[in-house]
């Protein structure tokens, strides 16, 4: 394998608001120029607010298709509307019209239109940026167009670009801020990962979502470790999470106390390791642990 010495680390949380992005950005600062950063939370990308990338290069991202009707060729037979399972071809003012929000680009209508009035067009669904961060590393990030589909494909694009850049530049790490949930963007962000960092919080929802996202990770057989953020908010829930970690053999990376430094740092556009506080050391030790796990042969 050519990418043998690149370690790809994906940070996930299942539930939002656990501090995932703040922690990912901190690891990115600690790794410095030995890492390529990928923001795969393309739906609500935030890491740029802390790493201040320069948006050096922009690429349009096309994915999926959209049906378009040439009204001059259409004979109003209605076959397209009949076959469309997404109700995307309503009849309006005696014309069949494609509703772009509903059209999933399946192309069935195009295949059955007797007059060849329908063509499929490429659909722009976002932009990809390749930037330099404030610590000099390269960051690949993206923005999904509003209400667009296929965030899974955009995630895959961001990751593949990051990987190519890491290979070309002989970097040791790829640090990926993953998407929330358990759907296609998460699955895309996991493909090819060497280690997953799970960030959770001691609430019933935190544990519930942790279990669901862990079930997805297990399918990929990737090693994982967990950070319990705001652990002092609810000690019993923290204990329960630890119990789950032991059962599932997930590394317990750290307990982070509730600290307003997360939002204070954010307002200064800094990561928590750029501000003097006890958390700086704690996060530093997480990074050391992760590196140790990655280099250990098992």
């Amino acid at each position: 394998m050519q990418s043998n010495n690149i370690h790809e680390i994906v940070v996930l949380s299942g539930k939002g608001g656990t501090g995932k992005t703040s922690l990912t950005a901190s690891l990115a600062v600690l790794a410095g120029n030995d890492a390529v950063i990928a923001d795969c939370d393309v739906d609500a990308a935030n890491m740029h607010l802390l790493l201040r990338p320069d948006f050096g290069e922009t690429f349009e991202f096309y994915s999926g298709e959209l049906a378009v009707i040439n009204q001059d060729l259409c004979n109003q037979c209605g076959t397209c509307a009949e076959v469309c399972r997404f109700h995307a071809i309503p009849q309006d003012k005696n014309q069949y019209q494609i509703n772009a929000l509903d059209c999933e680009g399946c192309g069935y209508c195009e295949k059955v239109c007797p007059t060849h009035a329908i063509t499929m067009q490429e659909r722009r669904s976002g932009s990809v940026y390749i930037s330099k961060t404030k610590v000099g590393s390269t960051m690949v990030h993206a923005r999904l167009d509003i209400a667009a589909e296929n965030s899974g494909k955009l995630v895959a694009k961001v990751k593949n670009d990051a990987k190519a850049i890491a290979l070309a530049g002989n970097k040791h790490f790829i640090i990926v801020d993953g998407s929330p949930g358990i759907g296609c963007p998460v699955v895309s962000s996991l493909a090819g990962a060497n280690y997953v960092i799970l960030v959770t919080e001691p609430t019933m929802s935190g544990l519930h979502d942790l279990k669901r996202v862990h079930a997805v990770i297990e399918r990929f057989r990737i090693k994982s470790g967990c950070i319990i953020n705001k652990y002092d908010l609810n000690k019993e829930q923290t204990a329960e999470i630890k119990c789950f970690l032991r059962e599932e053999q997930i590394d317990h990376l750290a307990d982070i106390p509730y600290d307003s430094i997360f939002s204070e740092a954010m307002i200064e556009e800094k990561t928590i390791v750029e501000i003097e506080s006890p958390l700086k050391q704690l996060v530093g030790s997480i990074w050391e642990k992760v590196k140790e796990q990655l280099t250990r042969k098992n």
Partner: protein
Amino acid sequence: MNPDKPLKIAVASGKGGTGKTLFSTNLAAFLSQKQKTLLVDLDVEEPNDFLFINGTIEKISDQYKMIPLWDENKCTLCGSCSNTCKYHAVVQLGTFIAVFTELCHSCYACSELCPVQALPMQRHKMGKITTIDSGNLTFIESRLEVGEEQAVPLIHQTHDLVDTQYKDIPIQVFDCPPGTSCPVVAAARKADFVVLVTEPTPFGLNDLRLAIETMQKIQKPVGVVINRWGIGNDEVEKYCDQAQIPILAKIPFDRQIAEYYSNGELVYDKIEYITTSLRQVITAIQHAV
């Protein structure tokens, strides 16, 4: 507003973890003190509302999507299906036709265009919908199976169920998935009003902007609830003023709320300013629609 039609309120947020679940569950419970209320959890990837609602399970129904099933005996290996599918969900591998269930959008094209009917559509379980009776509050949870990747079809099915079986519940609250892409659009499309829950931080503001753009694209009236007010700065308020987006309520940061939340407890009747905020929000919505 048409008095025969239920009032549908969607609760969304660009960023996850801003308090969408907290707000939806408490709003629904608060409303149900006075009238029959429906709460629908459409965050199908990570449904959490159930942690806060006690009641008895009325019904659990498995939800299916339709996928093609290859009939080897009929197939002539003409290759049409493989060329038809835009999502590469049906692929010819030598003399074998493979169907990748997670990729299939159930468009029926490969199946209906197969010259020898060798790809009949059949049911595939993708999730389940649970209905819980909690007195004046009816709660519906829509949950995607782990391993399924597409939230949208399940969200549509849940809306259909609500519109056929629960249309006489006059007020309906929909807890939407986070983000700005297809799942949240599918979840909010039927709403009369969208409440966007955010927090007063740079992340909150960034995602709020995207969420507002998304809702404007589908032409929904929106209002903003600022949760954990006091932890950050006032940029969110400034932005809303400038963009003329109404701020419906500001819920101060309070560790007590966080602790109740962590244990799966509702706060609408425990903390006075929450009760006041919820009343304000609902009055504002009723004025707006």
